[in-house]
């Protein structure tokens, strides 16, 4: 006992003397690491020590050199904490350009704030921005945090920030020999070093060094798929007093079902009876489920409330029934309870939601921290149906681009089961427009335009429905690039069937659409759907080109022109066909009818990084084609 203490003491002395010798002068950073870097992590370490199933000590240390003002935020010390994860000690030192100490700080200088956005969330944040204005400077800090659970361990991702280079970064995981873990290494130069320390504990360690700063590259895959990282999951754990163990998704799902979901779907008699009443006479179970889903939508709304077991456990259905609100967990659980009242089985599904990347749960590595949302799955025979329960308006069976086409974990009575949400094809994500316009002799445009939205585009006009007429007009005038657009009538309707669609019909008029000058008419051929985006050029691109999902646009516009005119310029006729997309645009004049046809399609998928220049050219040609200006001149006779 005494000897152990002395040994510990010696260790501390040694550490301090090592630190004192370390020189953090900015000039010592290798030139290789400077391009695109606003700051350089000199040394970062995260040490996790599992002392017991309900006692974990984290030690974080970071030394970062900020090269210019853009890097200030990288040195912002931000520490999340809550009643279960308690900050133990924080201290830091600020060095000038030459590595000389100029200031120091401790916890008392930190601001403590709530993490907003929810009705309630016990998570808080302490933060401190070192007030240094001469560059470069270096901030070195360390702190300890205690946690009472062993279910979730943070990922180690040493290079996860744009503009930050890394000299050294390490991750050390210490535990008793009988505490078993599973881990997953991604894109690492070398595997874990596993040793036993003097106390007989098992030590896993990882290290990387000399990582160049990441650059922002449009159409990049999900960071997790190309950055270096280590994920760790326990085998046996305690989570806020609840014990368990798992080595795969099936077992994790079983634990979730038994420990977090049990006895939370009871409803009172009146509600059950009401469900039976409203579904009476409906024989098709899918239509029954739709009716119940719509009832749930009319009865509830989404509010984020992070109370309960670590944000993983849903409120009881009874409570949602009474309060009429809940978060995604509570609303899915409530919907399940309502469905059960009509004898329809369903699954509570854990998913990583997000529009930019379709992120799947890792099939080969089960862990509790891979998702951020809950959706509902109703496994009808040969017709598995999905629903998001947090919206009051979307149709039953519609997921949209928030949770489409990805692997999710369904919690079933038999345990966890990995499933795949439906994929929307490029053809399914359609925006199709038909317009019939007249160009008057004074240059005014007049006529009707109908647009149909399908697939993930179904929601494109949701922000417009139910707005006041004035607001709708204002928003449409902003959306469409038709100057002086006056809306004579506007109608938006939604088909909420199992293949939902939204239809917008506008009757409009726009004076001066065509400029009349010296007997000629000038106007833009593409009135409503002009592409203006071209992906930015990237020197020495590193990542493959990732397109999360396909989409398509079909436009057909007919103009009735003033009589007796002909086209002066070469006609627009473009046809591009690439693996990632297609574009055609053409025009045809027959008597006084000018017809414009445009088709655009983008195909979801991952393409070699060399095709990025093609993608730029593709969009660039579309932008040009969409700018095509018609010039009409008086026909000879």
């Amino acid at each position, binding site marked *: 006992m005494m000897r152990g203490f002395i040994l510990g003491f010696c260790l501390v002395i040694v550490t301090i003397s090592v630190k004192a010798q370390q020189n953090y002068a900015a000039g010592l950073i290798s030139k290789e690491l400077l391009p695109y870097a606003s700051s350089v992590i000199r040394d970062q370490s995260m040490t996790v020590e599992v002392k017991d199933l309900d006692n974990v000590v984290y030690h974080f240390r970071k030394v970062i050199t900020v090269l210019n*003002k853009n890097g200030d935020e990288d040195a912002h010390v931000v520490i999340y904490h809550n009643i279960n994860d308690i900050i133990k000690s924080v201290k830091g030192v600020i060095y000038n350009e030459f590595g000389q100490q100029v200031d120091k700080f401790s916890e008392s200088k930190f601001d403590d704030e*709530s993490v907003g956005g929810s009705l*309630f969330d016990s998570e808080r944040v302490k933060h401190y*921005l070192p007030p240094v*204005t001469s560059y470069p400077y270096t901030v070195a800090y360390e702190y300890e945090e205690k946690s009472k659970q062993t279910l979730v361990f943070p990922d180690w991702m040493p290079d996860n920030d744009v503009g930050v280079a890394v000299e050294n970064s390490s991750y050390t995981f210490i535990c008793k020999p009988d505490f078993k873990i599973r881990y997953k290494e991604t894109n690492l130069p070398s595997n874990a070093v596993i040793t036993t320390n003097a106390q007989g504990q098992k030590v896993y360690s990882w290290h990387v060094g000399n990582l160049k700063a990441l650059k922002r590259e449009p159409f990049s895959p999900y960071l997790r798929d190309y950055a270096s990282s280590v994920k760790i999951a326990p085998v046996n754990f305690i989570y806020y007093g609840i014990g368990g163990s798992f080595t795969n998704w099936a077992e994790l799902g079983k634990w979730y079902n038994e420990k977090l979901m049990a006895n939370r779907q009871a409803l009172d008699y009146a509600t059950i009876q009401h469900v039976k009443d409203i579904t009476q006479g409906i024989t098709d179970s899918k239509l029954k489920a739709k009716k119940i889903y719509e009832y749930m939508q009319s009865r509830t709304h989404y509010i984020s409330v992070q109370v309960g077991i670590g944000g993983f456990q849903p409120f009881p259905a009874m409570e949602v029934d*009474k309060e009429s609100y809940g978060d995604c967990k509570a609303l899915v659980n409530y919907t399940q309870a309502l469905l059960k009242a009509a004898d329809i089985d369903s699954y509570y599904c854990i998913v990583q939601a997000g529009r930019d990347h379709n992120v799947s749960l890792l099939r080969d590595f089960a862990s509790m921290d891979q998702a951020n949302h809950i959706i509902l799955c109703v496994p009808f025979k040969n017709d598995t149906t999905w629903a998001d329960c947090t919206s009051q308006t979307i149709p039953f069976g519609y997921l949209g681009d928030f949770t489409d086409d990805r692997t999710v974990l369904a919690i079933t009575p038999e345990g966890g089961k990995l499933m795949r949400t439906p994929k929307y094809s490029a053809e399914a994500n359609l925006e199709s427009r038909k317009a019939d316009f007249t160009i008057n002799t004074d240059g005014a445009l007049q006529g009707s335009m109908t647009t149909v939205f399908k697939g993930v585009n179904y929601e494109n006009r949701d922000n417009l429905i139910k707005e006041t007429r004035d607001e709708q007009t204002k928003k449409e005038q902003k959306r469409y690039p038709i100057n002086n657009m006056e809306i004579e009538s506007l109608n938006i309707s939604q088909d909420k069937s199992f293949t939902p669609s939204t239809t917008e019909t506008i009757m409009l008029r726009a004076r001066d659409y065509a400029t009349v000058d010296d007997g000629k008419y*000038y106007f833009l051929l593409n009135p409503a759907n002009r592409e203006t985006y071209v992906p930015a050029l990237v020197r020495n691109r590193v990542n493959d080109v990732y397109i999360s999902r396909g989409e398509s646009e079909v436009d057909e516009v007919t103009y009735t022109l003033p009589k007796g005119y002909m086209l002066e310029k070469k006609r627009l006729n473009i046809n591009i066909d690439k693996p990632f997309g297609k574009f055609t645009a053409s025009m045809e004049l027959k008597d006084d009818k000018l017809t414009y046809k445009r088709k655009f399609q983008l195909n979801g998928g991952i393409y070699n990084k060399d095709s990025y220049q093609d993608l730029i050219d593709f969009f660039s040609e579309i932008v040009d084609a969409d700018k095509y200006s018609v010039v009409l001149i008086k026909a000879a006779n």
Partner: protein
Amino acid sequence: MIKPLLIAFFALFTVGIVAAQDFEFGKITSEEINMTKYAKDTSAHAVVLNEFGKSRINIGSNDRIVLMYEYHVKIKIFDSKAFEKGTVQIPLYNGSDNDSYEEVSNIQAVTYYRDDNGLLQKSELENKKIYPVKENKHWANYKFALPGLRNGCIIEYKFTIESPYWDRLRSWHMQDDIPKVYSEYEVHIPAFFTFNASIKGYLKLTKNKAEIETKCFESHGAACDCSQLNYGMSDIPAFVEDDYMTSKKNFISSINFELVEFTNPYDGVKHKVTKEWKDLDYTLKTESEFGGQLKRKSLLKDRITPLIAGKTDDLAKAKAIYRYWQKWFKWNDFIGIYSESISKAIDTHSGSIADINLSLVTALGSAGLNAEAVLISTRDNGALNTLYPTLTDFNYVVAKVNIGDQNYMLDASNPLLPFGMLPMKCLNDKGRVFSLDKPSYFVDMSLSQREKSSYMLDVTLQDNGKLKGTLINYSTGYKAFERRAAIKKFNTIDEYVENLNGKLPKWKLLKSEVDNVDSLDMPVIEHYDVEINLYNKLDNSSGLTFSPYYLGKITTNPLKLNERSFPVDMGMASEDRYTITLHLPAQYTVETPPAAVALGLPNNGGKYITQYDAGDNSFSFTYLTQFNKSIYGAEEYPYVKEFFNKIIQSQKAEIVFKKK
């Protein structure tokens, strides 16, 4: 749009007991619950059926003077789009360093709805579902969500706040983003206290009553009557925000109060708070967190002396101090007009706007320069109340230094601002100039600055269809500041140019030079050698068309609405000039040169001019857009909109090249 409301004791009727004006809690009518839409605004998702607030200066639970504020509202919710009205946040302020936030009590909330069987039900908020959250050191929130919301329900809630900040009599927002059937605010002010009241916005009060409430305030033998004021408004429309609107605070209907003076109830000593500017001047001068900090010139002497050593010119001295201050401080994102201690801020390199700029005024004064502090209201804080002198509208302070007959406004919180230039957020209405030894006065904040840019593209059309030549871009005034900020977002000029080129897919920036990035008082000049893919090849068959508005072409009108009831705020006057010089291959000639265009806005508000000069096998085309005002009145809106429309029309024209 700020008008005074009269509070005068002689105008009051005396009444013994004043009846409570609040509406009864827990009472709804069948018309209210059966309502399916609001007749006066059929597209509203919700309507406030009744709203009542009461402020009373009183003796609080711990025998101190407090402001008791009661709030009570009843809202009809038609559909789920307005469900957010059912999530309530009660913000509580703490102006001290310890945890003494304002206190909330008597929270009561209930939802009335028809259940699935059409029966009227009510659902009450449970106390354990009220969540207190300490947001930061100044603000806490009590949050709750009304239970049982559904389409067609009515929510009703009330609460009471006890606040030690009795001098900040709560203002009242008559108008909100949903319409209101009726809203009333009742204020009880003991005669020991005198406040000014004013109303903002375009709407009129339907009730404006003043009465005397006898012996309403008693404490330790001191007693007095109160004035009871009731402000009511019926049929209040929802407030709708527009683009190019300075601040909705300027236009939304509200009632605001300003403490004028008070008598200490215990010793009878009268304290003047607001009356005339000379009183405010005195207040600020003697305020330790304002005048007190401006007086600390000797404190800064040692710091300033080496900065100005050897400099004889006042302007050079002022610039040296300003630069030093910009480099010294990291702004901590707090704004305000009071500095607790400029020395503490200087020691830590970190400070609020007041810390940074009040210390700058002191430092300039310490160097023997004539420096003053200018109090302003930032753009999002709204226009100043100029009806009577008040300090409460000011939320920002900058320095002003007077050298010869010139004066310069300075804000040292941003290291990229040139000497004499203020950030956009400060260019609002008027500022009040304060100094320790002169009476204060107003200055106009909006007229002084301009942004100006000019592009010169000089290129030759090559046989391969590409344009080759140079592009020079001058950014002057505020534009130079914005350009610098854009450049400094990158670690090096090279990375900036890479990014710029990344956004121009048809361009190759072959060589680049950017001048004056760090010479803040000079224009930013960018030179590029460029190659532009114009045509795939020089097509001989038909005419080649070229838009002479190759740079900076406007294709959509930023002003969309047919008419407008609020002024259009463009921030500041601006000028954009583009010149394109194009040299053609020998065998080509221009067939249709662009027509000359000259447009103007009334009262010299702006102009748009094009000029075409034909050369030998080349031409030069210039177009210039100028806006001379920062704000255009609602009555000028159609002209500005049409001005853009005409520019867009003229820019549709194309030049045709023909083979000779």
